[in-house]
């Protein structure tokens, strides 16, 4: 990684957090927890890892991302707007009547969204289908997918894992956002997936654990995955729900939060402070604040 790349990627991940905080602050509510935990991986993907062209978002030879945990769309919308897929002004219209940006990732209206998601478990199958199609067309595009950890409750996820492994889809990189919580509580309380990495390994995935809050580690894991042949790849992102946004991290139930504009503004200030002082993204659980 180049000297200033970490700085650039952290800036991008901070901007993603800042942008969805602005959207949620304006609305007064949103899926803060699960957006926060994927801000860093999105920064790595859209900060240079993915071959995408904002001027031609539907180019068939692009890299693809299916956000299987579709409720975290505001974080992805932020990343896409920052990359220039659509005007930044659109972000302020999240969930407003007639908006192009609904809560859940919508490929019909948003340039750069590669698949409609929100009903959990289906995005990974779609990503596997995209990957197989690319192979048939002789294209070497990378197909990324981001699963939630609670999403692993959906059996379809493992149907898709079987297919990805059976066809040896080595251009498929699947992240699991292991943020430890689902809607009704912690994974342990609701329906514990236990050994996530072990499950993907058992299916035949090349599997790694990444510090999901560390852009450099995520970046390195993706490069290692790209070098490993013959099997699909899984990168389990060790994260925390609400990561880097204290008011969200502090709440026990933080899947969907009510939040004031003032709370969001304070969180944005804190993000800027941590960036400046070199302790970004911080967060209580990582002792970096």
């Amino acid at each position, binding site marked *: 990684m180049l000297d200033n790349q970490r700085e650039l990627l952290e800036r991008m991940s901070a901007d993603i957090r800042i942008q969805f905080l602005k959207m949620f602050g304006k609305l007064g509510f949103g899926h803060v927890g699960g957006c926060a935990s994927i801000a860093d991986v999105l920064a790595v993907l859209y900060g240079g890892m993915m071959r995408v062209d904002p001027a031609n978002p539907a180019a068939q030879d692009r890299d693809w991302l299916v956000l299987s945990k579709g409720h975290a769309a505001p974080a992805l919308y932020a990343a896409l707007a920052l990359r220039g897929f659509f005007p930044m002004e659109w972000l302020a219209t999240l969930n407003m009547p007639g908006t192009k940006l609904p809560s859940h990732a919508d490929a019909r209206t948003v340039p750069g969204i590669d698949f409609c998601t929100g009903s959990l478990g289906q995005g990974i*199958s779609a990503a596997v289908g995209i990957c197989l199609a690319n192979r048939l067309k002789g294209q070497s595009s990378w197909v990324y997918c981001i699963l939630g950890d609670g999403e692993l409750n959906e059996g379809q996820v493992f149907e898709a894992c079987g297919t990805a492994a059976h066809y040896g889809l080595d251009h498929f990189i699947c992240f699991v956002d292991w943020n430890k919580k689902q809607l009704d509580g912690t994974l342990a309380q609701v329906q514990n997936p236990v050994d996530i990495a072990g499950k993907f390994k058992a299916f035949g995935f090349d599997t790694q654990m990444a510090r999901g809050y560390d852009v450099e580690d995520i970046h390195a894991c993706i490069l290692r995955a790209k070098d490993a042949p013959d099997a699909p790849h899984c990168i389990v992102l060790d994260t925390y729900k609400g990561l880097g946004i204290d008011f969200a991290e502090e709440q026990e139930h933080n899947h969907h939060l009510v939040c004031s504009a003032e709370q969001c503004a304070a969180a944005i200030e804190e993000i800027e402070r941590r960036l400046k002082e070199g302790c970004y993204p911080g967060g209580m659980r990582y002792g970096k604040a």
Partner: protein
Amino acid sequence: MVKLKQTPAAGAQEMRGACCEALMEEAGKNDSIVVINCDLCGPMGLKLFEKQFPTRSINVGIAEANACSMAGGMSAAGMVPFFVTFAVFASRRVYDQVFMSCAYPGLNVKIIGGDSGVTSEYNGGTHMAFEDVGMLRIMPNITIMEPSDTVMMKALIREMTRTYGVQYLRTPRKKTPQIYEEGTAFEIGKGVVLREGSDVTLMAYGITVCEALKAADVLKEEGILARVVDMFTIKPLDKACVLESARRTGAIVTAENHQVTGGLGSAVAELLSETLPTPIERVGVQDEFGEVGTQAYLMERFSLTAASIVERAKLAVARKNS
């Protein structure tokens, strides 16, 4: 142009054979066509396709939800996927996948559901799709069809490869009576008038088309002239054809190998009650589950026969004249 057989006779080819033949022909011309199977490649008659196009015949095993969402993904990446399984699984089992991964995003996914209604015979009530049309009909962005013989099957497969959108084709897998001469062309969304008549219109699709033709013969002997329409596209409904039939004959009987609720009977009743109230009788399954047996037994059991259509046609005519 529609060319009819003089009398419907048992065909030489099975419906699944016709489906495979047409798919192979189109796949030979279009590299984007792929078939996604769920461990039913054999029963759905697609082994020859698999042999000729091994990389484009994808068997994901017994995982219909995954297959359906994968079809959506493949379509997003520019392919023309045919997701093939039994009708019960293509509808009941993957309803949300059809919605979320195919119809809502506006993709180009083709779904083939084998063993429509009573044609699942010895697989019995668990496998008897009497609800698939109704379930899928209320979903926007979807076309629903059932061919009535192998000539139409081949024509519809061709049409499906040439038109964009989510299309569901339900079908028997085995032999059906031949109704059309080879070379007949069909347009998705356009009913086919098989016989003109002035007293009542019999509208059917799939295996009940042949029953409607037989019923028309019986009615003719009794002085009732029936118009017969093969309404092979249930959605979008050929409204012009329904309205014209209502105007010309003033009474309508629908006949379907499906629940009367949600299927063609509902579609026709919905249209006419809002635009041109007309006596309608609906032949079909009356809110019951299927059961095991031969097709002949089951058609009697669920009153899907020519005799039922005759009886209901007389009722419709009587209501018109009362």
